[in-house]
């Protein structure tokens, strides 16, 4: 029993040695998972049954404690290809049954080892369905995970610490996640367009999808201004996904307005959609518990077709769903809605070349149904020439 010796007994963890403390006072006890210690963040649940590696490495999850609703996590370990950035971004990870044995031909490491190595505090053995129902009813909220020695403090103390942690609403997190220096993702199979991608927390699949369509992607830091960007002579400007409250993203809104004014085609995803909303003068708001999963039905209002899409957003744009509306840049309309709850999932300018979606056409994790949006971006750039 050589190969599996070190696993034996690992599932009988004895006493529960970790606490998940919610800001409304509910405490759930589980087992230390990943690194031991203390962490805080906004608890959100993700309903994807695959793709935990992509989720963990998605910068949009910065400062969030992610709860996986799928019960078995870690089965396929982690590998060198599926990360959406160079590190894990979640501030904490809540699972029910972590895998003890990794099984996949691409795996380079076990998930738990990876979490430990990157110092990510997690908790396992939690009734994640109960927790999800709680978050659904009460909304996303701050939580703390305390494991090992940290879990031994009385609940009242733990609660105080959680209540003292920062709120997501009003948080400007872009500077935490954006690249320090510009970098280039070369086009695959010959360059046809140059795109400036404003990194608000970009996932690596996004420039890859563009590169597949002949776009050379110049990823730039979020603090680049329009002058710096326009020097790249881009055919289009892309605004990525990212964490935080869009209400704080003044700089990005300014840059986008400048791009639109300059007549350069603009495409936004997720946070980028909220930026476009704000650029058009629309308000954004926080959803009670957000959309996080890879099974969300979104309808393209121009064709009536439904696409199954990957979502990860806690905020949304408030826009009139019926017909076009006036904006500082001419008419615009809602292009996509989520059929589950009618949340605005896409915006389209009718008089200038700009559009955006709230969900993730780059998928990773998730279905590829919305791939066509990258083609649409290419088309816009072609037309603008």
């Amino acid at each position, binding site marked *: 029993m050589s*190969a599996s010796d070190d696993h034996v007994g690992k599932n009988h963890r004895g006493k529960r040695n970790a606490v998940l403390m919610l800001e409304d006072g509910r405490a759930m006890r589980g087992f230390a998972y990943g690194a031991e210690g203390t962490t805080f963040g906004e608890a959100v649940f993700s*309903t994807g049954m695959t793709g935990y590696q992509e989720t963990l490495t998605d910068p949009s999850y910065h400062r969030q404690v992610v709860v996986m*609703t799928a019960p078995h996590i870690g089965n396929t370990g982690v590998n060198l290809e599926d990360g959406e950035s160079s590190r894990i971004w979640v501030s904490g990870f809540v699972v029910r049954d972590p*895998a003890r044995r990794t099984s996949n*031909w691409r795996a380079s490491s076990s998930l738990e080892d990876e979490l430990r190595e990157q110092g990510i505090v997690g908790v396992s053995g939690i009734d994640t369905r109960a927790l999800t129902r709680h978050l659904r009813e009460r909304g996303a909220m701050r939580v703390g995970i305390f494991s090992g020695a940290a879990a031994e403090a009385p609940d009242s103390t733990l609660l105080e610490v959680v209540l003292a942690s920062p709120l997501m609403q009003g948080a400007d997190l872009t500077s935490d996640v954006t690249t320090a220096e510009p970098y280039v993702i070369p086009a695959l199979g010959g360059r046809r367009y140059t795109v400036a991608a404003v990194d608000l927390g970009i996932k690596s699949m996004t420039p890859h999808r563009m590169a597949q369509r002949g776009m050379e992607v110049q990823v730039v830091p979020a603090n680049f201004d329009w002058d710096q960007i326009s020097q790249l002579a881009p055919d289009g400007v892309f605004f990525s996904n990212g964490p935080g409250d869009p209400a704080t993203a003044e700089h990005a809104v300014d840059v986008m307005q400048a791009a639109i004014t300059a007549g350069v085609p603009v495409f936004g995803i997720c946070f980028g959609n909220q930026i476009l909303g704000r650029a058009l003068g629309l308000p954004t708001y926080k959803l009670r518990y957000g959309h996080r999963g890879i099974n*969300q039905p979104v309808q393209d209002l121009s064709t009536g077709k439904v696409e*199954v899409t990957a979502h990860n957003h806690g905020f949304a744009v408030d826009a009139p769903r019926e017909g076009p509306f006036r904006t500082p840049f001419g008419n615009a309309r809602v292009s996509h809605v989520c059929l589950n709850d009618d949340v605005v999932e896409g915006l389209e300018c009718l008089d200038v070349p700009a559009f955006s979606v709230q969900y993730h056409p780059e998928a990773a994790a998730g279905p590829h149904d919305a791939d066509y949006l990258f083609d649409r971006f290419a088309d816009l750039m072609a037309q603008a020439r």
Partner: protein
Amino acid sequence: MPKRDDIASVMVIGSGPIVIGQACEFDYSGTQACRVLRAEGLRVILVNSNPATIMTDPEFADATYIEPITPEYVERIIAKERPDALLPTLGGQTALNTAIALHSAGVLEKYGVELIGADVEAIERGENREKFRTIVSEIGAESARSWICHSMDECLQAVEDLQYPVVVRPSFTMGGAGSGIAYDESDLHRIAGAGLQASPTTEVLLEESIIGWKEYELELMRDNKDNVVVICSIENLDPMGVHTGDSITVAPALTLTDREYQHMRDVGIDIIRAVGVDTGGCNIQFAINPDDGRMIVIEMNPRVSRSSALASKATGFPIAKIAARLAIGYTLDEIPNDITKSTPASFEPTLDYIVVKVPRFAFEKFPGADTTLTTNMKSVGEAMSIGRSFPEALQKALRSLEKKEAIFSWPADRAEVDCADLLNLMKRPHDGRLSLAQLALWAGSSLEQVHEATNIDPWFLDQIMQINEMADVIRAADSLDAEFLFAAKSMGFSDRQIAQLRNSTETEERRHRHSLGIRPVYKTVDTCAAEFEASTPYHYSSYDEENEAFPTDREKVIILGSGPNRIGQGIEFDYSCVHAALTLSEAGYETIMVNCNPETVSTDYDTSDRLYFEPLTLEDVLEIVHLEAQSGNLVGVVVQLGGQTPLGLAQALADEGVPIVGTSPAAIHLAEERGAFGQVLARAGLPAPKHGTASSFQEAQLIAVDVGYPVLVRPSYVLGGRGMEIVYDDSMLADYLERSTEINADHPVLVDRFLDDAIEIDVDAIFDGTDLYLAGVMEHIEEAGIHSGDSACVLPPITLGPSEIERIRESTRAIAEGVGVIGLLNVQYALADGVLYVLEANPRASRTVPFVSKATAVQVAKAASRVMLGASIADLRTTGLLPLHGDGGTLPEGTAISVKEAVLPFGRFHGVDTVLGPEMRSTGEVMGIDDTFGVAYAKSQDAAYSGGLPSSGVAFVSLADRDKDAAIGPVRRLSEIGFTIVATSGTAKFLRGHGIEVGVLRKQHEGRGADGEPTTVDAIMNGDVDLIVNTPYGVGPRADGYEIRTAAVTKGIASITTVQGLSAAVQGIDSMQSMQPGVRSMQEHALDVARLRAEADVLDGRG
């Protein structure tokens, strides 16, 4: 796009009898479809030959035809009903093939019937292997390298390229019939030869072996706006090489990264588009090489399949229901999600639990059958379970199977286990393989060794190791504290398993657990992992933190279902359970269903007010009772409708203080325990065949001499005629005892006089404590001694007169009173020399309840359910659930004759003898109904076997001596109506002596003649014989007959093994020659019976 307004009526074709590979999952899908279509205001015309289905209840369609599902009969129904459209995708391969045949013959065009749900070209693209391969390669995906062959020569050529082993798959067969893996040339001849035979297009595919690869399935749906969603991914724990129907399967897929899963999804979507399934569902199978991820598309089913039923139950997404609505024009986004009610159906369900399906086999019924699992499906049923982890779901599934040996157990000592032996045994995929793997892992084999032997994914094996480790902890712990016990329970350990490990009793362990306050919680299947609120109470248990199933404050009844299908306990019992749910809901009770069979209508969350998808063990049922008793008034638990499974729990439930509805456990005991039942009969003055109980050979011999040979011998306490045989003398008795059973004081053997030449009669009745309603009297066509489940029967009985029926009525009443029945009672009688012997009585719903309901046009199970809850038969007569006067024993003159025929799975078990006996082996049944017995019987044969009875040709006859005299009449008639009779020499000589012209065929042991004259088997294999009559010899070598019967199975030729069967068949052939039978709907039949009853009432002066 909303509903089409150009379709006002739709024909739905069912799947016919339950057979291996096509079971009651199609009753579930068909029933859903009928419900939906009627709710949409369409007129529904249904065809299905299987009377045991819910869908054939008159209330589920506007016109219900229980007629053979053949193009000829379906055309007659189309001509009569003139439907606008035909929906063929919900009745399995049978419906699809029939629809294609109707299309090809121009029938659909002739009557202006539009095929909806899938067009013929799409079906063709999905099912024709060559076309499908082309599609796969066009979308840039890979198929296994393969060759299409139309002859054995082509097969041999192909193997030169592919090398052995090769997989053989015939085109257009269901459940993988005729397919297999050939390791050498002799295998190839056998498997591909049969496959060419089985394929309607004489076509087989040979392909490179991908045995041992990971196997997956996707269930997809597409609407007419080209929206596609994946409903469910399924991962087979058993790798490639084992038919998915025989594999342990898991949902969702658990060992794929998102990239791999999305690649599979992309390919699946490209395929459904390219094939052109534009309104409905399909199932696509994939294989993945575990070493490098190479993905191969195996096949698709362009229709609702067994896996669709599983996926529906696993996710809560009702595929058949949605498919039916898509077929009439809706799009996915227009259909609300049934469970949330607030979100649309155009999404992909996400699961926060694990579903495990395990197959149930019946190899013990087919000695000689090969138990190796291959690409040819062999299981007869399945159980599904839901848990919050794989170990929990797996262990729940294994105990749901109701097979003791399937449940994980741990010997006292590791040294008892021979790991090398186990590792060797588990290389061959067979029904007990998982237990071997578990045991070997426990006893010291490494995960790598077990993986190498089985190719089961290491992740699954590690989960099993964790179960084993927990077992060791349970065994070693001084005492189980709350934290440990909770951990054990959350890995699915039952109280009974814990008791086994701790040398205590299940009850002790349960008390201990309850004293620590540890009970399961109940979660909800909601399609969305709790993202949205669910409004449908579809629950499963888990040992987890939060309970979310809150009982109501209503008057409630719990109905226990019948668990996995098996031979002897199948859809017939589900029928009764569903009827109870429907009628008791109507009567104002909250109905709560407990069952674990994903194929059934009872586990549709629409059937009852609440559904608990749970194993039917005492522990699991007690926990549900405990939960439901928290609030409202639990009137009781219904145990008499689900067959032996719930009946077996009755006493233990009563002992725990759970109220049992209807017949009491004490009364059940009176009927089931032989001594007690003997006293009931003695008190009522009813005769039973002489019998005794023996604990040794000497005792058995004495009893046999006393009661007189032949005798029927069987171990005590067995079901379904298990191990039962008829023996004719001392040496056969000795042989039986040596071969079949142990005999001692703890395991006595029952010895009964066997009534040779008796007429066997099956009776279903309802008793309310005062009145008896004789629901139906069925006369068996085969003699007594053949299991009632395998015997054809006719209702009304054709040879019994009113006085005999009256005796049956009085005897049945006496038994019902003596036992104390409240509800249903089934009695089997044998009528011999004017004496009505009681063979056995079962105080529960029988297998024949649905047949009786249909033949007599009375909802027997509904009436019985009401009686169980206190209604009187007199009440039910006035409210219309039962006829005002008369009963099933007094069907008026002119009532149509109904024949039930059993369907046997011999085609699946090569080499198994087809002779019928006291052990039940049929998987399903069909019904034929017409004005005369002959036509009704012929219809039943048409429905049961492809081709049915021949109308002309060569009949081969070989008779046992004791059958010869009785066979003269029917054989002569065969000859008169144009058959050429051939026989073996002895039978030929005898028949000639009676003036019948007979040719002679050589017996097998005689070999071919000097000039190459064929043996009987040669003649059969050459296709020179159209009908085989071969009655077995009571005593002596059976080899010759066996070869003949086996050849008949191979060639699919009608084969009759009893004289009574011959007689009925001749009447059938005779009447079919003289007329073309009509078709009648069940609704017309009900009106006929009502009219005839009214006319009879007028004559009797009651009108």
